[in-house]
């Protein structure tokens, strides 16, 4: 990481506690949803072939993604806010690349989400869930969730922020993150999905492959093949998203 990226990451990290509302409201709904969904759909675990008798255990990976995927959009909101306040222009008169400015934001928000998703896992443990792969597996799951959030919704909303320069426009796409997570086996197993079309959509959704690896870590332990697939998906999305963002920046500001 360049020193400029670190200085800009540090700037955002220092400022998080100064906006406690954002800090609180970016994780509180997920914690509530985790508890409510866990109670509402608890009956699913009675169905034949369900892999665990603790539904919170099954739900925990989805809750991590519910934290990291929509939560990373705050980085783009911050970018658009810097644009509106014209502070971004000020930064661009300094010997700093736009890549460092965006990376600084994404890394700081990534660190925040890693900790917030960690809080979600702690709640899962408090509700009787067990993580088969232990602390190392839990940390790997948090890393996967955070990286996936950055390369999907982080990249999408950063591009939107570059184009629209408007925090409200960035916030308007938040619900799409939930669609990305709902169209997976986050809440029930593939066998329980009623329609073949839906199963095909789930199979085409990259979120599913990251979720599967995270679920393996929760329910069975380290399955390096599914973990490898998940990291390939994350790397592939990053390889598409990062150059796309650079191109988008040049088309807007070049």
């Amino acid at each position: 990481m360049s020193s400029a990226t670190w200085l800009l990451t540090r700037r955002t990290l220092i400022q998080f506690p100064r906006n406690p509302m954002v800090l609180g409201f970016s994780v509180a709904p997920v914690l509530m949803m985790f508890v409510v969904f866990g109670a509402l759909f608890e009956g699913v675990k009675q169905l034949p072939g369900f892999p665990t008798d603790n539904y919170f255990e099954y739900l925990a990976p989805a809750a991590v993604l519910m934290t990291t995927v929509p939560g990373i959009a705050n980085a783009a909101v911050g970018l658009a806010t810097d644009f509106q306040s014209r502070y971004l222009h000020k930064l661009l008169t300094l010997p700093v690349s736009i890549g460092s400015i965006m990376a600084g934001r994404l890394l700081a928000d990534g660190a925040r989400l890693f900790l917030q998703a960690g809080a979600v896992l702690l709640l899962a443990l408090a509700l009787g869930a067990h993580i088969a792969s232990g602390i190392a597996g839990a940390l790997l799951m948090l890393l996967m969730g955070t990286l996936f959030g950055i390369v999907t919704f982080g990249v999408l909303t950063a591009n939107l922020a570059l184009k629209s320069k408007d925090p409200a426009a960035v916030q308007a796409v938040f619900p799409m993150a939930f669609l990305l997570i709902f169209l997976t086996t986050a809440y029930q197993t593939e066998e329980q999905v009623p329609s073949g079309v839906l199963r095909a959509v789930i199979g085409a959704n990259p979120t599913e492959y990251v979720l599967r690896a995270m679920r393996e870590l929760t329910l069975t332990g380290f399955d390096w093949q599914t973990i490898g697939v998940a990291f390939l998906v994350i790397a592939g999305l990053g390889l598409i998203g990062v150059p796309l963002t650079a191109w988008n920046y040049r088309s807007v500001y070049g």
Partner: protein
Amino acid sequence: MRHVLVRALLDSAPRGTGPDDAIVVEELAKRYPNGTEAVRGISFRVRAGDVFGILGPNGAGKSTTMGMLGTLVRPTAGRATVAGFDVTDRPLAVRRRIGFAMQEVGVDELATGSELVVLHGRLHGLSRREAARRAALLLDLVGLGDAASRRMGEYSGGMQRRVDLASALVHLPPVLFLDEPTEGLDPHGRTAIWETLERLNEALGMTIVLTTHYMEEADRLCDRIAIIDRGRIVTEGTPAELKGAATLEDAYLRATGRVLELAA
């Protein structure tokens, strides 16, 4: 007191010699995607160590010109070099050598004044200790010593302009761009900024390019002035040459054929 602060600030300043012309602008133009021709082929040179003023009515192209020289706006024709580097080909090299205080101030409202100036110093490669030392001196210099640890969201517009100026000076750049630097400041604040700029220019040989609506400001600070109107330079010279027997304000009105819009 101000002289003591400036002296302390200059202790660690580099006194390198750059090119004779700190800024060379040749047929520089900017046409925005909506078709607006903000700048239509302007040319001028600024000698190293000079204070150069750009005067003109609102919409004349002053801020676009500053934006192009500060690497914020990409020219559509012509070329410009700042401190010996082309603004289009070597933007990062230019940014290392300039300070830019903007017309519409962009500050980070969640940061304190001190944090902002230190961050900008660090991004310019200063050590943590040196950035903190200069930030403290500069914030004192612009009259914000007492407000240094307050968040900038609580600052008035005038305070934000002053912290912006302090952040533009933290690395003691060889070339300083000031887009209407004293707009919105009270007479006391304006005089303080003028004295600081005069000292920095004198002691460091800092080249300063400023836009202003204040004739008094241009007359007092500038070695040379260009009057720009509708994207073209209509006249250029020293304040004495432009004034002739009359005042600078008369010269401005003669050159632009307009009523002064915001002159003090």
